[in-house]
């Protein structure tokens, strides 16, 4: 990891426009030479499925057949088998993907947090440049806020409600100058919905009545095909159906293909399979009574308090929802291919973070940094690719930005913490350190004191818990090649490997904090 000193940081900000070159010593003979370097810029589509854990995809070996369509897509894609999100929930995970920086550098690690303002220029939209038509649609308001922060570099930004079926009326796209802030002003404060009190007494109350009344129908299981109610962005009370959202995405891609005079870069951040899990009726009988039980994992002291039975039930519906999303993805790809919209187009499928159903914990954004929440899918299909390629070396979602710059023949600013992904013309660096950071309890402007960090080096993974009550400094060490379920903690104070991993981690932690220490 390259934690930034104050001087490095200034160089980094300058490099965003100056374009210092990444050393190209790592270049391998490209399996798929970049279209940028061939002369014609390719289109790029990122399809991000929120909270999709790679550990629940049959594509990656999950025993339940959740993703036959992704597996079909994988037959003509590069499949990354050890790909991590740099954060364990939307804000840090998405911010890292869009900036190529770890959360302890870009500092968007609080709920709704923003990228360090000085680093705003270092984002995928800006670095791809205006040769591209840059397009964003995010159903998730937290990543919509981040895209809004890069607003000057985005040509078209749909509102999160674009393909919803009803609910809260957001003001985010009504205040273009303050779009990044409007979530903090309205959705998170003045018009907050229960379980939070709206800070606007009359306006917030009327908004609660209006939006909750409108979605009452959708929540009650009365939407055809949705026995648990229509899928919902619960915090903001916006109902949608995946059929409608995916049809909207298909229409938008077809429109971009037909109308854009420039090559386009389209970032779609789709909410499913985020909780609350509300699969379509066609999927609600899947896996029921199949007898699958994941390996038992004892409750973690920093985890929530979910019973194993509850977790098993939630896992079942989550898996059904993944199958639902997978089927919609299959339809989307078929539509686009039939229409010829994917010619000269890179298609990237990924997630912002995973989802945990173990050790007494459920969801994401919790204190735990186990594989369920960090291991995310990454599939990259090059234009014209007709065979599958598998990459097993550990990679991170901070690598996506430099990869896209590399593929389109753009310069990679120095200081970017990711590096071009192996398998696309760049050699793998097997002993590279990769990090994932969870630090919502810290100020974005001060050294980190409390949080959970996972560090990957080759087969080994160190998890550090720092600053928690009762766990001032706790470590776990796993060999993911031999123990992918993280059942056997290898960390021991006297052990050489443990000491080495711990000291490498502490050096990185210290370096990350360096720019924020008082002189």
């Amino acid at each position, binding site marked *: 990891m390259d934690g930034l000193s104050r001087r490095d940081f200034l160089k980094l900000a300058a490099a965003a426009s100056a374009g210092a070159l990444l050393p190209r010593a790592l270049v391998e003979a490209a399996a798929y030479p970049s279209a940028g370097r061939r002369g014609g810029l390719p289109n790029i589509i990122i399809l991000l499925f929120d909270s999709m854990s790679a550990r629940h995809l049959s594509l990656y070996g999950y025993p339940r057949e959740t993703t036959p369509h992704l597996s079909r897509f994988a037959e003509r894609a590069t499949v990354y088998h050890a790909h991590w999100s740099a954060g364990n929930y939307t804000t840090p995970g998405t911010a890292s993907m869009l900036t190529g920086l770890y959360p302890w550098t870009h*500092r968007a690690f*609080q709920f709704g947090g923003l990228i360090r303002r000085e680093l705003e220029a270092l984002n995928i939209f800006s670095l791809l440049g205006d040769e591209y038509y840059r397009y964003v649609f995010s159903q998730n308001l937290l990543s919509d806020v981040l895209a809004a922060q890069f607003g000057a570099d985005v040509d078209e930004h749909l509102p999160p409600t674009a393909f919803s079926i009803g609910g809260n009326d957001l003001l985010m796209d009504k205040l273009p100058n*303050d779009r990044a802030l409007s979530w903090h002003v*309205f959705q998170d*404060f003045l018009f907050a919905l229960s379980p939070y*009190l709206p800070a606007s007494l*009359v306006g917030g109350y009327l908004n609660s009545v209006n939006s909750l*009344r409108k979605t*009452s129908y959708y929540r009650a299981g009365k939407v055809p095909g949705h026995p648990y109610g229509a899928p919902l962005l619960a915090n903001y009370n916006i109902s949608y159906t995946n059929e409608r959202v995916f049809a909207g995405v298909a229409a938008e891609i077809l429109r971009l293909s037909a109308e854009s005079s420039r090559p386009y870069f389209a970032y779609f951040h789709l909410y499913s399979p985020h909780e609350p899990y509300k699969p379509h009726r066609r999927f609600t009988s899947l896996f029921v009574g199949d007898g699958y039980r994941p390996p038992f994992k004892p409750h973690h002291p920093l985890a929530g308090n979910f019973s194993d039975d509850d977790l098993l039930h939630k896992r079942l519906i989550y898996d059904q929802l993944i199958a639902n999303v997978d089927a919609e993805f299959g339809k989307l790809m078929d539509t686009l291919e039939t229409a010829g919209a994917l010619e000269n187009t890179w298609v990237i499928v990924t997630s912002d973070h995973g989802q945990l159903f173990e050790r007494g914990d459920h969801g994401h954004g919790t204190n735990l940094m186990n594989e369920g929440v960090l291991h995310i899918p990454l599939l990259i299909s090059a234009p014209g690719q007709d065979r599958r390629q598998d990459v097993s070396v550990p990679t991170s979602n901070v690598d996506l930005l430099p990869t896209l710059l590399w593929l389109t023949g753009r310069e990679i600013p120095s200081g970017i913490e990711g590096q071009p992904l192996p398998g696309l013309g760049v050699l793998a660096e097997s002993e590279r350190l990769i990090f994932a950071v969870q630090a919502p309890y810290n100020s*974005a402007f001060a050294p980190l004191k409390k949080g959970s960090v996972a560090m990957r080096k080759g087969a080994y993974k160190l998890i550090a818990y720092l600053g928690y009550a009762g766990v001032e400094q706790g470590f776990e060490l796993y060999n993911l090649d031999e123990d992918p379920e993280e059942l056997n903690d290898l960390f021991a104070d006297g052990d050489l490997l443990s000491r080495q991993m711990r000291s490498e981690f502490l050096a990185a932690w210290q370096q990350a904090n360096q720019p924020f220490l008082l002189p």
Partner: protein
Amino acid sequence: MRNRLPPLTQILPVYAVIAFVVYGWTIILVFWKLPSWLFFLHGGEIVAILSYSFLLNLLESLIVLIGLLGLCWLLPARLLRDDFNVRGAALALVLLVSIMLHLWVYNNSDLREAFIRSLLPWWGVTLALAAVLVWWASRTAWLRRGLLELSDRLVVFLYIFVPMSLISLVIVIIRNLT
């Protein structure tokens, strides 16, 4: 039309009561939220949030006042316009406190459906209470005196809230014009 509305000297204290509750609610929640904002927002961004908030407070307090004046205009004078200072203050307090309680009682995402179902009975009870209190306030010396003194003393806050909101208006306009 002016004959059907109360005099300005009576409107102002009632507006002060409304503004005190509306702005006070927001300010309390600002203090609850501020530590979190300080963790990741810059000073200018926090000022922008406060500007939007106070501007909205100004609008919603004026809307409530206009609503009360509309009632004055519609209802027979003896029900609300006469002794508007007392009756209007009592009505505003009941309505705004009712909103607070409704939000508070159902402040749980599992109760969203219940919140919607409770709207009719809640507001039925609130309006009945309001009617009783408005009737009673004008006839009970200590309650009348209490409401008069309260509304009179709250007028001083308008000297803070109104300029603050006008500054907020300027900030919001500048942010959205540039």
